[in-house]
């Protein structure tokens, strides 16, 4: 009940701050940033498999948000719109970097691995889920994060990633099996 009330309060605060920020109010925009930064960072870091890259991408997401805020029509919750924007920024960054990045054996562009120095302490006996996700091949990782962590449907993922719904399902299953294997080690 209290959680629902907090969510409603946050949404109301968002509405006001979104309107102010769309008009150029940077303080309102900073409040939006403070409210949503961790969530956006989580999406960026998990999808890219790198905390460092996730921080860069988070900044890109909020700069893009600032630019696009005047186009936000309020047809969905601001958080929904923002998270979708974050996903698009990550996917577009991948496309750009794809030209320069190395390719793995299975033909997928491989991301920078989860930074050893920056990551949270890892269990010694068992790899934790965060690290295991970071170790997935890029395509499988993105689908897994979008579906199992962020809750997108296969049709939405297919549209965002430019793949088929069947391809999304296949990547998800592959990701789950690889995670199981990694976590069992």
């Amino acid at each position: 009940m209290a959680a629902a009330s907090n969510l409603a309060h946050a949404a109301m605060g968002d509405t006001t701050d979104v309107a102010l920020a769309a008009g150029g109010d940077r303080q309102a925009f900073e409040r939006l940033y403070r409210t949503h930064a961790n969530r956006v960072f989580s999406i960026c870091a998990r999808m890219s498999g790198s905390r460092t890259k996730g921080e860069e991408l988070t900044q890109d997401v909020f700069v893009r948000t600032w630019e696009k805020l005047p186009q936000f029509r309020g047809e969905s919750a601001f958080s929904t719109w923002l998270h979708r924007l974050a996903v698009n920024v990550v996917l577009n960054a991948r496309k750009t970097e794809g030209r320069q990045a190395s390719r793995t054996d299975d033909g997928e562009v491989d991301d920078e691995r989860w930074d050893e120095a920056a990551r949270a302490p890892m269990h010694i006996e068992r790899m934790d889920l965060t690290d295991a996700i970071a170790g997935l091949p890029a395509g499988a990782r993105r689908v897994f994060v979008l579906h199992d962590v962020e809750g997108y449907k296969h049709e939405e993922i297919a549209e965002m990633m430019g793949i088929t719904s069947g391809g999304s399902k296949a990547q998800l299953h592959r990701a789950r099996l690889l995670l199981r294997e990694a976590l069992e080690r």
Partner: protein
Amino acid sequence: MTSSNMTCDEFDTALPDYLEGTLDDSRRAAVEGHLSECVRCASMLRDIENIQKGAAAMPDLVPSRDLWLGIESRIAAPVIPLATRPAPQRRMAPAWMGIAAAALIASTAGITYMLTANSLRPAKSSTVAAVTPSSPLQPTNGADSGVPAESTSAPSPVGAVAVTRQPDVTGSRVAARETPPPQRIPVQLVSQSSDRAHSDVVYGREIEMLQNIVSQRRTQLDSSTVAIIERNLQIIDAAIAQSRAALARDPASQMLDQQLTHALDKKVELLRTAAMLPAST
């Protein structure tokens, strides 16, 4: 193979749809029958369901540092309003940026040529704005120039200008005495020059701030993008230099003043665009 007539391989194939809940009744019954008899497959299902639950319940990650400062510096809004803010901004293709800058140079050079040519023609003065026919070197009336109609002797930033104004008896003219003039500048220019100087300070501050941001972000941007930005900045800088030179020769020209402002706007706009570019584009 188990008594449910489903093999482990068949189970593996059916598992994604089983987890999605998209199997028809008979297939789902076969999967569940197999699960009740096969430890390996039951264990796999349990593990994957745990992964699903774990993934859905993952807490948010926290950045290692406050990212706001970096964001704020990139969205730092303009001291100088250009058009209107962030209406859907189209990213200008590099080729168009080049063409736009070339057009700017061409127009500036053309105007400079016209004005320079005019100023070299004998017996035609182009320096004085709004003067009476009988006194071509007299300054304009203070009411027109925005300068109070009283004695002023402050030196103009542009050159030797000291104008003494006296009340005009007839009300139609302003009498003026000037110090030995290499070039005479009407009172209007005192105001225009000080506006220009103020404008230069504001632009200078804005450009310096944006250049700092762009230079800090150099490593995050694609090298070809950086090269294009630098090339276009050189073109715009050349246009600015030409406008300044022409304005020094003809400080009265509002057109040249506008050209200079336009070129400075272009520079601010390009730097601002570069400052807000996403990383590695």
